[in-house]
């Protein structure tokens, strides 16, 4: 229950603090309470942070943060030379971009197959889904790379792309199917009753209503694709994690580099989530 009094302080609204306020509870006390709750949280994070720090200190690890700069980029004679991490994130983005488009295509085809009356469509789609769902991504990647790629002569990058697309495609299929089936039965019936052809029914009535339901989770899929793309480091595609691993094996600065890589992913994925959230809020408002 989110309730805010007209005079609920802006801060409390911003933080989403429960606006329940007793008559005798002046605005300042209310702010104080919100601040106290925030402070509690910050305190806890500080404790966790200190634990990590103490752990690191106890490990007698030699931190060498001063060495990380060139991993991103170097400036030589005013010229920008991208470092391995910079190159890595570009490859990660390429990987995620291409495979997200492919995964939507695969997902749409699978969804159509599953919803169709065709025996082949259903059986092929569900075989695909069962295989993807019941094996680990890592093992799928090994299968793609060591078994399928040599057989079909696919190179490493595309093996990675195809594996990711096949994996995420299974989720996309369920999202698309879910969206289409979430359209009320009455809409299908009304479209049928006016004698629309099957194509027109989907093109003008069902899909336009399903799209707003499908798009937000589909963008969520892109985020998880970025995360999962890290796994292709196992087959040496030169994306962010691979570059990180290579750097570690060069320099043995394991922890510095892991923290940086994790931070880069975090920035990428959280900024995307924030964008998705804004998009969703906007779409809800439009409705």
């Amino acid at each position, binding site marked *: 229950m989110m309730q805010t009094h007209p005079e609920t302080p802006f801060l409390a609204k911003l933080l989403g603090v429960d606006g329940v306020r007793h008559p005798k509870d002046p605005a300042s006390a209310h702010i104080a309470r919100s601040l106290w709750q925030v402070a509690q949280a910050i305190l806890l994070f500080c404790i966790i942070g200190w634990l990590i720090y103490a752990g690191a200190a106890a490990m007698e690890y*030699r931190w060498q943060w001063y060495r990380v700069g060139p991993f991103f980029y170097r400036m030589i004679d005013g010229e920008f030379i991208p470092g391995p991490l910079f190159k890595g994130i570009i490859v990660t983005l390429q990987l995620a971009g291409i495979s997200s488009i492919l995964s939507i295509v695969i997902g749409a085809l699978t969804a159509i197959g599953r919803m169709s009356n065709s025996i082949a469509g259903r059986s092929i789609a569900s075989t695909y889904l069962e295989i993807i769902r019941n094996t680990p991504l890592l093992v799928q990647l090994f299968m793609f790379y060591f078994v399928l790629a*040599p057989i079909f002569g696919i190179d490493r990058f595309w093996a990675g792309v195809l594996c990711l697309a096949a994996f995420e495609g299974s989720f996309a299929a369920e999202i698309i199917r879910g969206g289409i089936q979430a359209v009320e039965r009455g809409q299908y019936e009304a479209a049928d009753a006016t004698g629309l052809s099957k194509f027109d029914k989907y093109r003008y009535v069902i899909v336009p209503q399903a799209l707003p339901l499908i798009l937000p989770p589909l963008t969520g899929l892109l985020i998880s694709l970025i995360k999962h793309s890290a796994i292709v480091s196992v087959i040496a595609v030169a994306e962010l994690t691979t570059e990180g691993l*290579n750097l570690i094996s060069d320099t043995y600065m394991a922890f510095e580099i892991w923290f940086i890589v994790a931070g880069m992913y975090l920035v990428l994925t959280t900024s995307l989530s924030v964008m998705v959230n804004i998009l969703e809020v906007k779409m809800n408002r439009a409705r």
Partner: protein
Amino acid sequence: DDLIADIQKRGTLKVGMSTFVPWAMRDKQGDLIGFEIDVATKLAADMGVEVEFVPTAWSGIIPSLIAKKFDVIIGGMSITPQRNLTVNFTTPYAHSGQMMAANKKLSSSFSTIDDYNQSSVTIACRRGATPCKAAQKLFPKSTLRQFDDDAQAFQEVVNGNAHAMISSAPKPRFWSEAYPDEVFVAFDGENLTRGNEGFALRKGDSDALNFFSNWIVVNSSSGWLKERHDFWFKNRSGWKDMVKLEQ
């Protein structure tokens, strides 16, 4: 802290290693065998403790050592100044060379180092291992592909996705024997470089370092290390039955 005392107190020596034919591998019962296994077993026996092997993925072996998952790495790790900044090394207990296996179709015409040193040539190796360093140094122009595992790198050569792969001897020779039509050992089996493999330890305990180094000195002058090395590396006849090779 005193590593040797800790080991004695615990009664086990924990050894980090990684599967790497014939340094360490699985026999047909799934047990570990290989040169390093022999070395570590004797080392533990001489210390009067049990040995415990911790098989570890190569890319995580140094972080694992630092995170105290085991006491020492006996994993065919070559001594390099770079690595030495992070960990301590003992005196070398083996001197492996690097060998190159090349794809017959792609590189049968190549005979010199320079032939391989072209940007159109792809060379595979195991990520983080010395061969990769060697390849970088020897073939700066060619494209380097790093894998988590030697077998993957080798399969690339068999499939013609890479011109050649570098690995520590004698693996390239063993593999080439299995695929005589596709792969050959480049430079007539000559070692490209000479490595120095030592045990790796966490920094900060010179007593342990001293103990392990001297253990190696003693065992190499007694000839035991060479005898074991030859058994595993010269050819496969001595241990073929253990792993049940059909060829």
